[in-house]
């Protein structure tokens, strides 16, 4: 019997030794960079990851997530950080920094613009943060399948919420952000008043009431790659989506979709580092590399998201300009995501949204 138990521990020990030594060897010379998947991750792969690997020889594992701080907090609190850099929304950066789950980043390490302007001045306001460095300006818009609306076309956010006039299923992101903003804009609130209204309990009720009216017609999506797919499959007639994904579907895959820029909600994406990253130095080096003027401009070749460095803008190809959220024509009725409001109300709204959804 003793022999047998000894054998058990022996087997376990051999297996353990073999695997434990194998695992770190695999993880050592690679960075895990996490982003939103699909066409967006592909643009980062082309503009950042590949040149970085070519330059340094460091392999990059690209993993996907669907936004939010959940996975990061889980890794930090469990003391088991496997992500090195994460592409975050600004409100999540503010929240994550407050919560102490992101590393602080000294912005003085960032390279200046080619003309010598220091990084702090070169980035658009809000794009460099105590805990993160910005990469893109992106926007949530809605798009429709032109074949489904042969007659009158939807042109405003209110049309999205009008299922009588424009029948058909709607796609929306499964979360309160920026569904509440859309609901209020669709309900007739001017874009500059949205957060003012949303800061009152009645305003929140009004937003949910507006969502209630189309609730039965909505199919909820979670990953950025889903909405163009749902539109292409005919699951929905119109859907909210990230503008870059739609650009990819319309111009690369030649789908018959039309973007409605009215009432777009734009935001910044930034690189953040989960606190306790095992490859901190290397990750900082990667962030430094990927946010220089040329790299940010390169990224806009692959997807229609704007660079956050002023010095990158002239380097973006002119034929790409009309597809950027910040293009004058598209920017007429646009709302910037209010990261402070969301940092304060994220939990409450998430919970209320989940409860509302389950009813």
């Amino acid at each position, binding site marked *: 019997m003793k022999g047998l138990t000894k054998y058990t521990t022996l087997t376990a020990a051999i297996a353990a030794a073999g695997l434990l030594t194998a695992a770190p060897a695999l993880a050592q010379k690679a960075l895990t960079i996490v982003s939103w998947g699909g066409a967006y991750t592909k643009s980062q792969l082309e503009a950042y990851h590949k040149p970085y690997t070519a330059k340094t020889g460091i392999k990059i594992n690209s993993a996907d997530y669907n936004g939010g701080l959940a996975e990061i907090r889980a890794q930090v609190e469990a003391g088991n950080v496997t992500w090195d850099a994460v592409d975050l929304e600004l409100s999540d950066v503010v929240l994550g920094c407050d919560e102490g789950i992101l590393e602080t980043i000294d912005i003085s390490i960032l390279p200046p613009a080619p003309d010598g302007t220091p990084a702090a001045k070169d980035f658009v306001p809000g794009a460099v943060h105590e805990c993160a460095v910005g990469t893109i300006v992106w926007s949530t818009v809605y798009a429709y399948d032109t074949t489904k609306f042969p007659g009158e076309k939807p042109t405003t956010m209110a049309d999205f919420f009008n299922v009588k006039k424009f029948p058909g299923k709607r796609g929306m992101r499964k979360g309160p952000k920026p569904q509440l903003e859309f609901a209020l804009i669709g309900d007739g609130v001017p874009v500059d008043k949205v957060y003012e209204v949303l800061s009152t309990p009645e305003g929140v009720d009004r937003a949910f009431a507006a969502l209630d009216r189309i609730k039965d017609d909505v199919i909820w999506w979670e990953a950025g790659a889903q909405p163009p797919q749902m539109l292409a499959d005919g699951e929905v007639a119109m859907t909210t989506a990230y503008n870059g994904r739609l650009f990819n579907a319309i111009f690369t895959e030649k789908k018959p979709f039309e973007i409605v820029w009215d009432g777009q909600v734009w935001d910044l994406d930034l690189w953040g580092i989960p606190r306790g990253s095992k490859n901190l130095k290397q990750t900082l080096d990667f962030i430094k590399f990927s946010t220089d003027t040329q790299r940010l401009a390169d990224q806009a070749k692959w997807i229609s998201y704007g660079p956050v460095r002023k010095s990158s803008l002239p380097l973006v190809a002119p034929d790409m300009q009309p597809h950027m959220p910040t293009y004058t024509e598209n920017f007429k009725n646009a709302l910037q995501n209010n990261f402070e409001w969301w940092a304060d*109300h994220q939990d409450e709204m998430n919970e209320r949204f989940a*409860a509302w959804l*389950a009813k």
Partner: protein
Amino acid sequence: MAEITADQTVITTADGVPLKSRLAQAERRKKIAAFALVLPLLAFILITFIVPILDMTFRSVDNPVVAETLPRTLAALETWKFGEVPDEPVFAILAEEMVAGSKARTIGKVATRLNYEMPGSRSTITKTARRLKRIKQGPYKEAFLKIDKKWGDPDLWARLKQIGAPYTLSYYLAAVDMQYDAEGNIVSQPEDRQIYVPLFVRTLWVSLLITGLCLLLAYPIAYLMATLPTGISNLLMIMVLLPFWTSLLVRTTSWIVLLQTEGVLNDIAVWLGLIGDDNRLQMIYNMTGTVIAMVHILLPFMVLPLFSVMKTISPSYMRAARSLGATPPRAFWTVYFPQTVPGIGAGSILVFILAIGYYITPALVGGRTGQLISNFIAFHMQKSLNWGLAAALGGILLLGVLALYWLYNRIVGIDNMKLG
């Protein structure tokens, strides 16, 4: 072994030890030997499985954050009376501890914890902590109130004191749609936040529905297989076992392919002219999808126990009943059916236990309305990060499942569990 000597009243072994104790000793040795064989696995399961689950259930009552981050503030609040706003000394201590918590980056967790009990109060804490760094000296009360007037709300202080207890029942209360009010009484959650009790009810109801449907579908085919010659019934058995052995994700994928609006079944229906091309049926991403896919996945678990019970029922009973003049339905109902009840019991409990904790299929095909309690546990684990609530919901689910498991053991006996 033992040499029995007849002339002694106490029977002993050759070396003089009474036989009785020798036998007891031998038996003990055998018991230990048997137990020693089981011990490695028992220890393994305890460490890799039972301990983690106990650890998780502990999280449903564990509440250390505030007690660890603001210990002196809590001590200063000992004498505080409900309905008051504390004075300068308490504010001064709180300021000091908040700055320290800010440096240690633990204050965010306090804010999150407070936010569970008092939605919207997260920013009060984080904002104050951020600005306090610049305030070097008192009076603090004034400074606090200037940063956020909520510090003048006695309820905030009541909550702060409330969540300072190292253990709490508030997660369990939240899991049954209740909460503490500021004074510490247990009250119902506001209407728009009551979701878990209806969700538990829905989960039970759906599991019952699935169990019922499985029984309804499994009974005829089990009966058919039990009465057909072995060769054919073995062939039919393959059709039950193949789904059983096929990956869960494969089966879920195929249901998506079949049921989606542009999927195979809708295409066939349109082609046959049953429905128009523009009013295709929504059969997936709702409760219908969840129920169809889960019935398919769990059906083999009902067929197998039914089949093994029916296999043992001799057909002569039915013939006897018929020859005594019973009509076929009557013969079936009074003679055959009662004998299959153990199989029905075993299959039903098994299917019900598996259904009640299902996660993958509802998550993939359930859409908004087809979500079950497991999906909300996952939601709180991965998205909202309210791990205490996830643990409490999990604890309640676990209790229910263990009760059913106990029942199953009583009725069927785990030893009689058959596979394949």
